[in-house]
C-alpha cells in the first residue's frame, strides 16, 4: 500500500514536472523598435539685392568698396554723403533648406562697427537714421511697411526689435525669402564736424524659431 501510494505520488510529480517544462518551451518572439530623435536647425543667410553683384555690402562709397570677394565691382555706389542724403538698399534674407529645417521669425536688427577699420567716427551714428521696412502680407502686391526706425547709434547699442505696425512678428518660412529695405538718412542738420568722416558697420539680422514661439 505504501509502495502504491508512493508510485502514485511519483507519477503526479512527473506529470507536474512535464507540465512545468511545457510552459518553459512555448513558442515566443520579441521585437524592439528604435526611435531616432534629432533637433532641427535654424539658420538664415542674406544678400544685398538691388540688381547689384553679390555678395557684398549694401552701402558703399566706391565701386571698389562694394566689390564681391571675386572682384566684381559693386554697381550701386552711393558716393560720399551730404547732409540730407537718403539712400535705400535691399537685403534679401533667406531661410534656406541647406542649413535650416524650420520656419523662423525675424526678430531684430543690430549693427556693429566693422573690425579693422581705423579712424571710425562713431559720432556719425547719431546723425544717421535707419528705417527698415518689409512687405506686410503675402503676394507681390503686399504693401511695404516700416518695422523699425532708429538712429544707427541704437542699432550699435544692441538689437532693435522689428515688428509690423500692428505688433505682429515678421516671418520667413523655411525656403522662403524676406525682402528687407534699409533706408539710411544723413541728418540734414549735421554740421561741418562730420565733413570727411567715415563710419563702417555690419548689419545683423536676428531670427528665432517660429514653432512653439508664438
Amino acid at each position, binding site marked *: 500500500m505504501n509502495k502504491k501510494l508512493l508510485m502514485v505520488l511519483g507519477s503526479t510529480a512527473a506529470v507536474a514536472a512535464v507540465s512545468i517544462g511545457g510552459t518553459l518551451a512555448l513558442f515566443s518572439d520579441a521585437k524592439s523598435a528604435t526611435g531616432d530623435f534629432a*533637433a*532641427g*536647425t*535654424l*539658420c*538664415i*543667410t*542674406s544678400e*544685398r539685392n538691388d540688381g547689384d553683384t553679390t555678395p*557684398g*555690402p*549694401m*552701402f*558703399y*562709397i566706391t565701386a571698389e*568698396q562694394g566689390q564681391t570677394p571675386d572682384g566684381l565691382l559693386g554697381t550701386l555706389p552711393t*558716393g*560720399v*554723403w*551730404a*547732409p*540730407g*542724403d537718403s539712400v535705400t538698399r535691399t*537685403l534679401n*534674407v533667406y531661410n534656406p533648406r541647406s542649413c*535650416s529645417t*524650420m520656419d*523662423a521669425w525675424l526678430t531684430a536688427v543690430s549693427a556693429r562697427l*566693422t573690425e579693422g577699420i581705423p579712424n571710425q567716427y562713431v559720432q*556719425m551714428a547719431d546723425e*544717421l537714421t535707419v528705417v527698415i521696412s518689409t512687405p506686410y502680407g503675402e503676394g507681390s502686391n503686399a504693401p511695404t511697411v516700416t518695422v523699425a526706425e532708429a538712429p544707427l547709434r541704437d542699432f550699435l547699442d544692441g538689437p532693435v526689435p522689428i515688428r509690423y505696425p500692428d505688433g505682429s512678428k515678421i516671418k520667413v518660412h523655411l525656403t522662403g525669402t524676406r525682402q528687407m529695405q534699409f533706408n*539710411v538718412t*544723413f541728418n*540734414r542738420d*549735421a554740421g*561741418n564736424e*562730420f*565733413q*570727411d*568722416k*567715415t*563710419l*563702417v*558697420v*555690419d*548689419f*545683423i*539680422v*536676428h*531670427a*528665432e*524659431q517660429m514653432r*512653439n*514661439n508664438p
Partner: protein
Amino acid sequence: MKKIALSLATVGALSALITGASFALFTAESDNVNNTLSAGTVELGEVTSFSCGVSTDNLAPGDSGSCTVSVTYVGSLEAWIGVEYEVDGELFDGDNPLAISLSGGNEVDGHYVLGKFSDGQTATVTVNYQFPIEAGNEYQGAEGEIDLFFKAVQARNNTKPDGSGPSSWN
C-alpha cells in the same frame, strides 16, 4: 516610496525643461558686413590775389575798371559758391565814393551767387569799380580797401526749386 520619489524627480525635470524652453529657443543671425558711410566735403581751395589789369593805386575821378579774383573749389561734394564784400577807408566815404559792383554771378535772395561747382573747378568774380567824376579834392590821397569773402555750401539737398542757388547758406 522610491517610485514616488522618482515621479517627483520626473515632474521636476519636465518643469525645468518647460521653464527653460522659453529661454532656449533656436536662434540664428545673418550679417551684411562692411557698409561704408562716408561724409563728403565742402571745401574752398586757394584764392588768387586781385588781378586788375591796370594799377588801382593812382585813381583819378572818372576812372573805372575791373579786377578779377578766383577761388578753386576742392570739395568732394558739388557746392554753390557765393561771395560777399566789405569796403573800408576814406575812398569809400563822402558824397562821391568809389563805387563797387560785382559781376560774374547773380544776386539771389540778397546773396551774390557765382554758381555751382565741382571738385577742381574755379569760381571767378569780377569786381567793378568806378570813381565818380564829381569827386573833388577831398579825395586826393584817399585810400580804401575791399575785402572779398567767398563762401560755399553743399548743393545736394540744398538747391532752390528754380535752380538759381542754394536754399540756405548755413
